[in-house]
């Protein structure tokens, strides 16, 4: 088996506040292999974006990585200085953000933004950088790339803008791309275009992709493996077919049941009672136990078992077995 592109071990992100220490990411471990798309799902506040930002070193102070290690292609990157990290950002890790309008500079033509990124990371001449920029735009499917390279971001539609952002993330040929809700701001038909593009690029270049989203449908169609996050912890990790088809963690099961896609004509949607707990006010034991229909004594004191390796499935003391999960929660 080849070496993983990204390997995250027991990552903890802390934010010291006046009301105590918050842990938006608490003991998360996963690997991403070359050519693999790892989907990260969860509700708002589950820590999925924070995990992505920690990998690329974009945590805003006072948030900091307090424990754990991040390895990129075998090199440890979580303890690098900002100056050293710059060599990795853009070059080895590309980032695609949710809102394509705010992640482009509105005052610069897209061509300038692309050539700037290319020349920052590769020592090429101006004309070579220009050619590469055109090629990058062509690769992401922008028609008449050579003419449109002088256009400003506002001259593009939302879907085209997101393609430019993807071109920008890919132009220095990174080995890992972190896509944080890349299609959330887009319409259904454009979303299908962008996810197909991501899949194609991932396959052709053998890139590893970390796809952060809250949309189960997008994950089901795009990801190879999926990590479900709840209150800063990994709840479940496994091949997408298994996790979505027969969830083992009660939270995943509830989440699947509450998507209207899975309701199959039932009158009522399955509800998970209550709300996600606030980070400053996490319950003892397993963070999901107050909302879990299968809670037992053990869950009240002991946090769910930490998922250690890539093949562990659910961080639950009493994981659902396949038949029970198929029946769903009544």
């Amino acid at each position, binding site marked *: 088996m080849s070496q993983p592109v990204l390997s995250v071990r027991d990552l903890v992100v802390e934010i010291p506040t006046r009301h105590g220490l918050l842990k938006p990411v608490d003991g998360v471990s996963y690997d991403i292999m070359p050519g693999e798309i790892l989907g990260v799902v969860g509700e708002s506040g589950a820590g999925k974006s924070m995990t992505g930002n920690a990998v690329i070193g974009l945590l805003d102070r006072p948030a900091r990585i307090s424990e754990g290690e991040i390895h990129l292609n075998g090199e440890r990157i979580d303890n690098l200085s900002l100056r050293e990290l710059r060599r990795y950002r853009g070059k080895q890790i590309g980032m695609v953000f949710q809102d394509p309008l705010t992640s482009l500079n509105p005052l610069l033509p897209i061509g300038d933004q692309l050539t700037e990124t290319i020349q920052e990371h590769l020592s090429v001449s101006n004309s070579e950088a220009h050619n590469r920029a055109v090629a990058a735009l062509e690769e992401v499917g922008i028609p008449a790339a050579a003419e449109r390279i002088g256009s400003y971001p506002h001259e593009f539609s939302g879907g085209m803008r997101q393609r430019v952002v993807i071109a920008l993330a890919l132009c220095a040929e990174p080995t890992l791309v972190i896509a944080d809700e890349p299609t959330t701001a887009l319409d259904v038909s454009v979303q299908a275009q962008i996810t197909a593009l991501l899949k194609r690029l991932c396959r052709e270049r053998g890139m590893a992709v970390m796809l952060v989203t809250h949309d189960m449908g997008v994950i089901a*169609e795009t990801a190879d493996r999926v990590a479900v996050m709840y209150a800063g912890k990994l709840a479940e990790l496994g091949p997408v077919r298994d996790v979505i088809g027969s969830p083992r963690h009660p939270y995943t099961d509830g989440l699947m049941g509450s998507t209207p896609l899975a309701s199959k004509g039932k009158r009522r949607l399955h509800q998970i009672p209550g709300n996600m707990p606030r980070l400053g006010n996490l319950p003892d034991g397993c963070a999901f136990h107050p909302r879990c229909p299968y809670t037992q004594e053990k869950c009240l004191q002991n946090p769910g078992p930490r998922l250690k390796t890539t093949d562990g499935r659910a961080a639950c003391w009493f994981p659902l077995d396949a038949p029970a999960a198929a029946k769903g929660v009544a």
Partner: protein
Amino acid sequence: MSVIVSVKNLTRNFDVSKPWLNRVIERLSKRNLTAVSDVSFDVEENTVYALVGESGSGKSTIGKMIVGLLNPSQGTVEIEGVNLATETDEDKIATVRSDIQMVFQDPYASLNPRWKVRDIIAEPAAAQGEATEGLSEKLLEQVGLSASDANKFPHEFSGGQRQRICVARALASEPNLIVCDEPTSALDVSVQAQVLNLMSDLKDEFGLTYLFISHDLTVIQHMADKIGVLYLGRLVEEAAPTDLFGNPQHPYTQMLLEAAPRMDGFGREVEPPEGEIPDPISPPSGCAFHPRCPLAIDRCAKERPELTVKDSTRVACFKPGEKAV
């Protein structure tokens, strides 16, 4: 079943011209954006009528015209037989107005942060001079919050709870019709499930009618009794959910359903749809969908297809029901 909302040939134009001095200097003509073009449909009492479409399809504009936040450029909206734009009888207008309420997309922007929840919820009833004693507390319990929440301010609630407050406010004037403009788009799936279930329960309890505006096909499929699909301001297909999702007639609907992600679509390779919604300022001639349509013939570029009845659906296409291979 009686018809509660009747929309006929509804059209709305927006003036998007540059300021007149620029027009004079740069010799530009006036420009119009047609957000809604010749849309007709009826909503029956105690049903959920859903409008679905991508951004720029005019679904929110229709919603705003129905509640009276915008006036139609052409065509009429009749609610319980009263046309609010032309009716002169003040009493009739007041009755109909109190029968319509609206729930907006963003529960963070639609609640006044300086008002207590009690005042927010009672406002629609207070505006009509009704007694509001204990009303907010009763409604809060009906939407699954507690009566003591009436003394709190909106910032003390999460997104899902805020949307419940919005629903409670909409119920305060005892309306018949609630226009919901993307009510769950800002919410997480598990919270969305709670709000959708609440809305279904309230519909049965109070005999409400919903006009449900959304871009999310899965939510629409779950909620709607009848669905209208909009493309570039035009109604292209109208059908019951089983027909629409089982046997879509219009090529745009087919494309939309094909592109929507599926939970069981593991590794599904879809040929993503070509192109994007055209510019509404200069829409294509004839059928607005023809530049992207795999079935387009010469006629589609020249003539605009009318909505015609085919079995139980209405569809605006010259080749309804044909599948693109």
